[in-house]
């Protein structure tokens, strides 16, 4: 039997018996066959001893059982690694960061507790996936949209706690949450916001309650176990239209992004989109490769003009009343018209609700509030998995170009291409800043994975030198990225550690999560 670090086999055996008494023998998994199901299917450590493998898993069915598990784990100082649906593939899946941890699997807590389509909110448990909530809403004909991220089997709670993003105007998932129920390491239950008021009638309608707003300390952290969470939903819109803005020259990017940022920040564009270069998506062309290598923007401008593809483009999505979205697109065109040679292309136009035939024709329904797994096509038919590198950069043309330069170098290091010219989409999942979502392949090849991990770590440092920080990362790199957030001798991390020591003195909750370790496991910082 695998053991948690620092726990004797006798203590672990006693703790497992107590877990069984608390939640039932069927839901305490200890055999290698069962526990191996919690390994990271996209682990960057395949076939290496460093792969963190859990010692056991426990799967409670309700908050009272979670409380019992926390108390038992505290008594025996057993590390618990909490997962919701465990499908955070690309960022660690269901595997712990610390080998030997017991996975606290909340998948069985999958109740949709409430959906309100008059004030547009939901209250759910951590095991509820986007597919589950979509089905609940669809089966009842409720007039609300959910906002799925790319993988529809993810948990609303888990994704929001990891500060994930979607595509509709409710795209910032943590920002759109309203109220939490949290089990602390000592087993106590806390409700945040208006939930602290017994018999509250507004837990999912007003975020802040009274006093300090503590919800943030339970996101990307290991300070509590979130067992319920409220979310604001989007009223089913009447219409959607999308328009594409294409500019012809390299240096048009500066004006393109400046106007785009104005539209985002003024609320005219409210949903996720990306800035790309159409030059990046054509068939391989030796002439283009040579021009890229030369670095001459003038020659690339001429090439783009000759091929009539444009140098940069941004696709603008609009959701809302039909006349309003039409006016928003017209306004956007007016703003972009100051760029000489700009072209506008009307793209998709829909009225809602979709019928089944309309929906079936849409390859990627996620921007329309319909969960999907389409994103897993991303690595091709023989892909063995992936992980993501996701730095936040300023919403300016200058930053985009600088980032492209850095990422082109990464591509060359990986042997992927000789330069992307905008092949790494710059996304607007969050207001006010761009995020680059860079794909790293995972393979069952030790040397390739080692090389990718090395490149990844170099990239973290290089990004930090440019003033960029990652918004989220695979468990393998959480320490590296927290290290980069080092202002004033790591003052922020030291604050996290102060809270960790106060709220979780036995260090049982997800040790190492986002670089935050309990006192006994904390390594001396240089």
């Amino acid at each position: 039997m695998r053991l948690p670090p620092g726990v004797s086999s006798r203590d672990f055996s006693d703790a497992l018996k107590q877990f069984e008494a608390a939640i039932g023998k069927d839901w305490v998994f200890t055999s290698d066959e069962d526990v191996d199901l919690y390994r990271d299917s996209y682990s960057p450590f395949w076939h290496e001893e460093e792969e963190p493998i859990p010692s056991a898993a426990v799967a409670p069915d309700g908050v009272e059982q979670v409380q019992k598990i926390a108390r038992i784990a505290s008594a025996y100082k057993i590390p618990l690694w909490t997962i919701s649906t465990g499908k955070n593939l690309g960022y660690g899946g269901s595997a712990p960061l610390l080998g030997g941890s017991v996975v606290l699997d909340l998948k069985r807590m999958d109740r949709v507790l409430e959906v309100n389509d008059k004030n547009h909110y939901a209250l759910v448990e951590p095991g509820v996936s986007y597919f589950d909530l979509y089905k609940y809403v669809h089966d009842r004909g409720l007039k609300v949209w959910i906002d799925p991220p790319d993988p529809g089997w993810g948990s609303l709670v888990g994704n929001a706690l990891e500060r994930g993003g979607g595509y509709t105007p409710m795209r910032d998932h943590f920002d759109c949450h309203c109220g939490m129920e949290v089990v602390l390491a000592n087993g106590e239950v806390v409700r945040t916001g208006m939930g602290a008021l017994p018999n509250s009638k507004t837990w999912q309608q007003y975020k802040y309650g009274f006093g300090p707003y503590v919800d943030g300390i339970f996101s990307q952290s290991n300070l509590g176990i979130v067992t319920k969470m409220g979310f604001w939903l989007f009223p089913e819109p009447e219409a959607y239209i999308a328009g594409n803005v294409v500019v012809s020259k390299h240096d048009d990017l500066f004006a393109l992004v400046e106007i785009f940022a104005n539209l985002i920040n003024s609320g005219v564009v409210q949903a996720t989109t990306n800035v790309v270069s159409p030059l990046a998506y054509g068939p391989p062309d030796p002439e283009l490769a040579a021009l890229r290598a030369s670095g001459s923007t003038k020659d690339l401008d001429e090439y783009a003009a000759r091929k009539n593809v444009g140098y940069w483009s941004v696709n603008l999505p609009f959701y809302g009343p039909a006349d309003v979205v039409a006016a928003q697109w017209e306004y956007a065109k007016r703003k972009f018209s100051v760029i000489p040679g700009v072209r506008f292309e009307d793209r998709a136009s829909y009225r809602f609700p979709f019928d089944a035939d309309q929906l079936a024709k849409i390859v990627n329904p996620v921007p329309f509030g319909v969960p999907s797994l389409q994103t897993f096509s991303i690595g091709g038919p023989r892909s063995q998995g992936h992980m993501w590198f996701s730095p936040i950069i300023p919403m300016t043309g200058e930053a985009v170009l600088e980032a492209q330069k850095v990422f082109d170098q990464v591509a060359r290091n990986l042997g992927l291409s000789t330069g992307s010219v905008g092949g790494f989409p710059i996304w607007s999942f969050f207001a006010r800043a761009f995020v680059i979502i860079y794909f790293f392949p995972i393979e069952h090849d030790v040397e390739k994975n080692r090389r990718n991990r090395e490149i990844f770590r170099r990239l973290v440092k290089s990004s930090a030198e440019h003033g960029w920080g990652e918004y989220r990362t695979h468990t393998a790199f959480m320490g590296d990225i927290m290290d980069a957030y080092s202002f004033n001798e790591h003052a922020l991390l030291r604050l996290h550690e102060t809270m960790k020591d106060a709220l979780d003195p036995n260090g049982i909750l997800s040790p190492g999560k986002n670089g935050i370790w309990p006192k006994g496991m904390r390594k001396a910082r240089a």
Partner: protein
Amino acid sequence: MRSARAALLFLCSLTIATTAFAAPDDSQVERGHKVYDKWCFPCHGTGSGKPGTASLAARGQKPAVLEERTDLTAPAIKRFVRHGVLFMPMFRKTEISDAELDAVCAYLTRNNKPQ
């Protein structure tokens, strides 16, 4: 390599005839259909945006839609659900229980012909 071994096993399992064939009962098939719709269809179903179906098609598996196959075996299905293959992850027992997996096997082998 895990996936290579798994892929080989899968191919073998598709081509080697089952030695014991028993038609699954209707209620088990019906239950399996529901589990399939929840857990398998989003990746292996018909229509656009189904990466499992697209991957099988690209790798020459015919038909690429699992529900249309008549040569799947329960051991192969279980191996893939519990071990994953390529970009398909493994599934935990809190997601698909052993009993639900038996039902999925009943559903996906419902049209198999006795050998």
